[in-house]
């Protein structure tokens, strides 16, 4: 399979997973953002919120990594700068979800 085809399939599969997760997360964010510390920690430290938030972050950063590399492809002319920008973004977009998963599994009331 051609790389571009693989990339397109990954993009579409992650998009299908991301849509319900975004709906779930934004509804819950609106419901908890003004609440007390204990309520917010309780939300993120219990299931299924812990799992779904982790999944959202992994899928969202994976999806963004693929789609932002398309933006770089369209707007950055210089190959060297484009490669560096892609590498920096890929590393960041792996580290951020990993950190947040570790944080979520260390959160306790």
């Amino acid at each position, binding site marked *: 399979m051609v790389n571009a085809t693989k990339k397109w399939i990954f993009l579409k599969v992650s998009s299908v997973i991301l849509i319900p997760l*975004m709906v779930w997360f934004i509804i819950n964010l*609106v419901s908890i953002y003004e609440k007390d510390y204990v309520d917010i920690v309780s939300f993120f430290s219990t299931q299924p919120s812990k799992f779904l938030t982790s999944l959202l972050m992994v899928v969202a950063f994976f999806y963004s990594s693929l789609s932002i590399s398309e933006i770089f492809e369209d707007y950055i002319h210089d190959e060297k700068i484009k490669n560096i920008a892609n590498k920096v973004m890929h590393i960041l977009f792996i580290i951020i979800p990993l950190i947040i998963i570790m944080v979520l599994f260390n959160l306790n009331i």
Partner: protein
Amino acid sequence: MENKNPLSPHIQIYSWNISSLISISHRIIGVINILALTLICLWIALLLLGEVNYEYIKFFLQSFLGKFLILCLTWSFSFQILSEIRHLFWDLGYGFELITSKITGLIVIFGSFVLTILIYLIGKQII
């Protein structure tokens, strides 16, 4: 070797229409959303600092600016959700006719505001 290809999608020279407006907005809002999710990750990470330190964040989130930012985030999520659904329909082969594309474009724009209100009301348990 230097790439001589022109940059796409030539947003400076094409005349604007609904499709191009939604297309570039989809990209910009996608980038804004991932920056927002990064800030949300930071917000969750800051919970580790404990209840006393969280008071500053709580104060900000309960302020007008905090509420406004959450409302903006709700809209940007709503816009991306609807625009992404429109893209998925295209991938299945539906909605390419000019008139259908214009209608679905308008649904994304106006629907994002309706969805924002709906999500906010559901989140606040008003409905």
